[in-house]
């Protein structure tokens, strides 16, 4: 979805995440998850995906296990909990479905973050430049905090006045002699110091940013913002494609928990077509590139 108009990208992600969450059908969820993972693999390096999986998989497993422990609805009793409440097949399946939904949505948002860069965000929120500015600054805050925290921690570790080299030698020689409390106190002290540096740095930076924006004339009347995005024929086609898939899906009929209705094959095909759109578009781009190369 990278080369499309930001509105088209937004419509795509809204449709995919919306259908995944609101039509909690097992086949929909599987289609959604597989496509999201494929797309994420195309967008981000594999190492990052592995790191992300190590975070998400335990969460997914916990979700799947938690549901049958607290939801006892269902007619197929598999076993009993120690307190006498039943574990039902329906609740287990629902837990697994909820877990897959969670994984799929998180993966889609991973892709969304890669595709919707801050310039696209500002373009999409063009109706309110102030909101766009605030949102893009806020969204940037967290990764920036993390980067700075790393930097400060490294600097503090290299030259910490809290731990002198003599003290360090003492510590390493007889670690057990210093009480647990004293060691904790020291680490809390360090953490407070790092936090204080982080906050003052960030606040100072905010003032500098504001000054810089003011001196460059941000928000003055005759000035407008420039966006490089256009709405091309390709965007029209993509939007039409998304709309067509959405209509076919919405016409379909699905069961509701605790029953599963596996009818409505058309809707499954439409949803698969919708989820595959970014992958198909990448493949098309690659093919076009290959063919135009061979002609030269």
């Amino acid at each position, binding site marked *: 979805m990278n080369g499309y108009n930001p509105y088209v990208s937004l419509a795509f992600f809204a449709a995919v995440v919306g259908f995944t969450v609101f039509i909690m059908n097992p086949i929909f969820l599987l289609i959604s998850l597989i496509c999201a993972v494929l797309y994420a693999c195309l967008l981000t390096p594999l190492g990052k995906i592995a790191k992300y999986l*190590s975070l998400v*998989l*335990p969460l997914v*497993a*916990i979700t799947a*296990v938690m549901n049958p*422990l607290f939801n*006892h*609805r*269902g*007619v197929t*009793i*598999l*076993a*009993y*909990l*120690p*307190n*006498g*409440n*039943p*574990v*039902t097949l329906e609740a287990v399946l629902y837990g697994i479905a909820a877990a897959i939904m969670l994984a799929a949505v998180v993966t889609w948002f991973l892709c969304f973050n890669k595709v919707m860069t801050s310039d696209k965000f500002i373009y999409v929120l063009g109706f309110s430049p102030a909101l766009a500015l605030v949102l893009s600054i806020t969204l940037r805050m967290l990764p920036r905090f993390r980067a700075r925290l790393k930097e400060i921690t490294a600097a503090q570790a290299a030259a910490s006045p809290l731990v002198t080299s003599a003290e360090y030698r003492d510590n390493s020689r007889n670690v057990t002699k210093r009480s647990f409390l004293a060691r904790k106190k020291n680490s809390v002290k360090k953490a407070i110091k790092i936090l204080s540096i982080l906050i003052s740095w960030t606040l100072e930076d905010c003032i500098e940013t504001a000054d810089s924006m003011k001196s460059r004339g941000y928000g003055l009347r005759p000035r407008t913002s420039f966006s490089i995005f256009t709405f091309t024929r390709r965007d029209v086609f993509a939007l039409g494609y998304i709309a067509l898939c959405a209509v076919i899906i919405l016409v379909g009929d699905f069961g509701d928990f605790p029953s599963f209705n596996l009818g409505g094959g058309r809707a499954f095909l439409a949803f698969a077509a919708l989820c595959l759109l970014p992958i198909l578009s990448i493949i098309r781009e690659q093919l076009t590139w290959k063919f135009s190369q061979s002609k030269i």
Partner: protein
Amino acid sequence: MRALAYSIIFMLLLVGCSQGQAPEGGLTATLSVTTHDGVIFPATEVNFREGESVFDVLQREMRTAGIHMSARFVPITNTAYVEAIANVYEFEQGALSGWTYLVNGDSPSISASSYSLTDGDAVEWVYTRERL
């Protein structure tokens, strides 16, 4: 991955636990379970041990009969609350609907898990749609 392994082990432990079966001979009571429009468990003679509560007997009998039943537990008062029998849940028929019980035709004003049964009691569990 370790969290996954732990949760599977936890799950297996929970599944592995089982409850004792109905005691033989001794004290008996009559138990019946009815909803507002049907009978789930017709009046049946059941055995129980000295000191067992209405809730204990219901839970054991539902389990032996393979009927779904779900309860909530309130640790602070150490009582149990029956929220569903046979997938008929409280609040399904309005804000005042839910499961309540009668012993010998009277509705005791204490939790079913605090009411100790005596020999020959007739316990009826009914799904009420308004205050009894």
